[in-house]
């Protein structure tokens, strides 16, 4: 059951990654070239999933969309992790007023929901993938900082860190050799969940018109564009919706699966 979650997650996430990789080398059709005569075709051959309102092959756009989606996830999670994890570790290891400062600042950032930040940033720098990624990334920093801090506190309180100090290991050495490897799993779980959040946030931003501008295909703006054909060609909206759901589900399952897999207490629930 626990394994099933992990494996399902791996398969779904793997599918998204494979789609993104394929799109780098090849797509069945040009994902941005408008073909006026072929609008809104149903699924079939050669357009596996049909064509959109511009006569573009939906399958090709989905493949490219997987890439955008992954990039959004990687960059925003990257920003959040690269800033959040060291901050959290620092707060946890040094403690005292630094800890208080980091945590209070992260509280304030937390009060800025990602979307609010994205709205603000998009209005300052214009709607683009970059601003969306930065906004989502910055807004997720507190989550990573918290997770890293909690993990660090736990590790630092453990006897093996005391033993390492007794063995003369420096603070830096403890951070690198003891804290980092031991919080890596929880950070990994958070990253996986962060990916799912980022994908959903990008979709929401696209819906509000603050995401990636056309013609670059993202699942979010495909979904948004599909709305107008809701009654004429409902499948238009099904494909990107499904893709988003699959990716989010995949990353969430992966995260949950990892968490359960790594937490022996939960593994032995009576």
């Amino acid at each position, binding site marked *: 059951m626990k394994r099933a979650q992990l494996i399902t997650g791996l398969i779904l996430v793997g599918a998204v990654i494979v789609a993104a990789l394929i799109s780098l080398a090849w797509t069945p059709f040009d994902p941005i070239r408008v073909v006026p005569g072929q609008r809104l075709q149903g699924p079939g051959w050669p357009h596996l999933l049909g064509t959109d309102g511009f006569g573009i092959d939906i399958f090709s756009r989905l493949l490219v969309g997987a890439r955008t989606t992954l990039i959004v996830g990687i960059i925003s999670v990257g920003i959040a992790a690269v800033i959040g994890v060291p901050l959290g570790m620092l707060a946890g290891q040094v403690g005292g007023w630094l800890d208080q400062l980091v945590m209070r600042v992260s509280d304030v950032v937390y009060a800025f929901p990602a979307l609010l930040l994205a709205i603000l940033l998009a209005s300052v720098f214009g709607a683009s993938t970059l601003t969306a990624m930065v906004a989502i990334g910055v807004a997720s920093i507190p989550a990573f900082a918290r997770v890293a801090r909690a993990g660090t506190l736990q590790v630092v309180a453990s006897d093996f860190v005391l033993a390492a100090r007794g063995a003369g290991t420096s603070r830096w050495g403890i951070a690198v050799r003891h804290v980092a490897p031991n919080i890596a799993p929880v950070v990994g779980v958070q990253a996986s969940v962060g990916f799912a959040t980022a994908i959903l946030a990008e979709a929401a931003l696209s819906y509000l018109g603050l995401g990636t*501008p056309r013609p670059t295909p993202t699942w979010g703006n495909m979904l948004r564009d599909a709305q*107008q054909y809701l009654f004429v060609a409902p499948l238009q909206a099904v494909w990107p919706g499904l893709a988003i759901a699959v990716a989010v589900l995949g990353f969430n399952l992966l995260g949950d699966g990892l968490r359960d897999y790594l937490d022996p207490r939960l593994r032995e629930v009576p």
Partner: protein
Amino acid sequence: SGSVVPSPTAPEHTLTVAATLEPAALDPWHNTAASIPQVLLYNVYETLVKVNSEGELKPLLAQTWTVSTDRLTYTFVLNPAAKFASGKPVDAAAVVANIERMKSDPKLIETLRAQLAVIAGAKVIDEHQVAITLTHPSVMWLYDMSSSLGMILDPSFTGDLANATAGSGPYYVKAHDKGQDIVLAKSDSYWGTPARYDDVTFRYIADPNAQNAAMLSGDLDVISNLQAPDSLPQFADPSRFTVTKGTTNGEVVLGLNHKSKALANLKVRQALTAAIDRRALLDTVWNGEGTLIGSMAVPTDPWYEDLSGLNPYDPAKAKQLLAEAGYAKGLTLRMRVPVVPYAVKSAQFVASQLRDVGVTVKVEELDFTRWLSEVFTNGDYDMTIVAHVEARDLGKFANPNYYWHYGSAEFAELYRQADEAADDQAVAKMKLAVRYLADDCAAIWLFALPNLVVTKNTVDGVPANATTLSFDLTTIASR
């Protein structure tokens, strides 16, 4: 707002109209938004003359008018029955007071100020006669008087325009719930044919899809102008809906910045025009609804002729022209468009087709305010797409400072001559000016927006064409 369970007893006494953009304020003299006259013009404020659905000038507050032979003095005979909601008569003094008020208003918006400039003065002849003199003859100015410029406000009114009973029209403004709707109520003392409805609600729903959903769920009576023509099949059921199709004054213009080096070259402009299949664009972007136009005139303009075939789709010729202009190796242009459905979709189409002839288009989407400041005011763009919704607005091309920076002195002269021409020659001269624009590829005219009004099939009398910015309620009735 609307009701979920419509009361079975016909006819209805309220009407709910969906509109897209909400005006921030209800003061047309200090706000440019086209959404203000949509609600107020003809419904709340009346003008001396009015443009009907066919584009013809008709009497409203003025029963008749005469033009002096030098075409500089217009004398209007006011309808003696006309009176404001306050009960005061709409007399010559009120007309003069309105013109003078605007003339002395330092904050008057620029569009009105420009239109006002042609008026030399106004004077009371008797209680019901007023004479207006012009600085030079103009065909356009009487049309202007049928728009916001000509709205006659009760001179004695001193209240808040948001709850205004300051007009002479069949309705007055009852309430404006910001973010939601504006409610007009029947003016009981209206001097003409009484209003059909007790209350008319303009409900603002920005998202076209949400408008459709509200209509389909029975919450609306009218969609004032459908912004998602692809959804028309949803309203195919004749037992529930009626769709009225007509034209508007909105030319969707692919504006070219003539200050941009490549675009100052006629060959490039011709190439770009030939590279875009406008029929396919209209089919793809606006579901084939609307009219192909080849220049700055729409079918309801008296000087309209179909020029859409003038520079037909021919990618091979486009490539050749580009090569001749020295851009055989390619050309990169920035297209900055406001985030409105027709512009965004057209931009994607245009970018794709221009790519086929070797022109790289970088599309940027800006929200409208930003578009106004960066594209419209600062001219920081190569290409843009926007619908010019005002009536008879080809004169914009005569202004070299307008955001296209189209500096053709020849056109300016052609336009001036046409505007000052006598009635019998005006149309022919306008046609010359219009054709000049097309030949010079001053811009690329993608299409004219259609007027697509969806109503419950219980609603009747919707005018086919939107010849002014007004959503004219006076002809609408329920069956």
